[in-house]
């Protein structure tokens, strides 16, 4: 195999590894940003350097390297700390209003504006 081909293969492998590492880093940071630091004031795990945040970072990193998906990691932490640990809580019966409220506001707000304008035009 000539040297150019070998170099090309090496470069290709290096690029794949680099892209995978970057993806993993992005995924990890996304997860950190969506986790609440329970002992901090309004900070995410990504923003905090507290003992708790550092331990959570360790756990998330370990679970990612064990092949766990983002959802599996959230599920694990929710099981231990409840929905409060995630900024984007899973959809359930206790928080359905939180999920639907923006849409309700949009619908009723639109309806309100439409009816008000219609009334004004009719006058």
């Amino acid at each position, binding site marked *: 195999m000539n040297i150019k081909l070998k170099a090309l293969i090496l470069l290709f492998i290096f690029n794949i590894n680099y892209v995978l590492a970057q993806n993993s880093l992005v995924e990890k940071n996304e997860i950190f940003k969506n986790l609440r630091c*329970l*002992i901090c004031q309004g900070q995410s795990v990504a923003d905090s350097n507290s*003992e*708790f945040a*550092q*331990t*959570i970072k*360790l*756990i998330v990193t*370990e679970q990612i390297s064990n092949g766990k998906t983002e959802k599996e990691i959230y599920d694990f*932490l929710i*099981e*231990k*700390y*409840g929905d*409060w640990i995630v900024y984007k809580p899973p959809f359930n019966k206790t928080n359905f209003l939180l999920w639907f409220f923006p849409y309700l506001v949009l619908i009723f707000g639109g309806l*309100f504006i439409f*009816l*008000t304008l219609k*009334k004004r035009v009719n006058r």
Partner: protein
Amino acid sequence: MKISFTKLTIILLILFIMGVFFVSLSKDSMYNTKNLVGKKLNNVQLKSFTDDKIISEIDLIKNKFTLINFWASWCTPCQKEHPFLLSLKGQKNLHLIGVNFKDNKNNAEAFLKKLGDPYHYLARDDNGKQSINFGIYGIPESILIDENLIIIKKFIGPLSKADLKFIKEKTNEY
């Protein structure tokens, strides 16, 4: 009296906003672990403080009640609760497990030598990973479990007289 659609909407909106504020402000915004009560502990892998022995679920089910206490020598509130832990040592049906959290081994040993060792078994959690499995977010924290590994109560912060009373009553019930 006829109220216009606009006025009614505004009144309803104000009432709704007031309702949201009322509910939110009267709610306890502090994180608590009450949702963990009644849940079963799993994947327990506590490493011994002195050797490489691992304590797992099999060891915990042998005890009628177990109090797992997370502590560290650098934690001042841990010193405050220590007399309570010492008074629980002889408690019938209760096994005490101490988990030394992110601590220096020599300091931890000195702490126990000075204040007394209340634990039947001492474990260590050097990097804090095991603490996550127990839903711990700060120390001291203690978890009372029964022989089925069901969490009876979590004590956040140092144990108090009331906590001590609860533990004693609970373990005496058996």
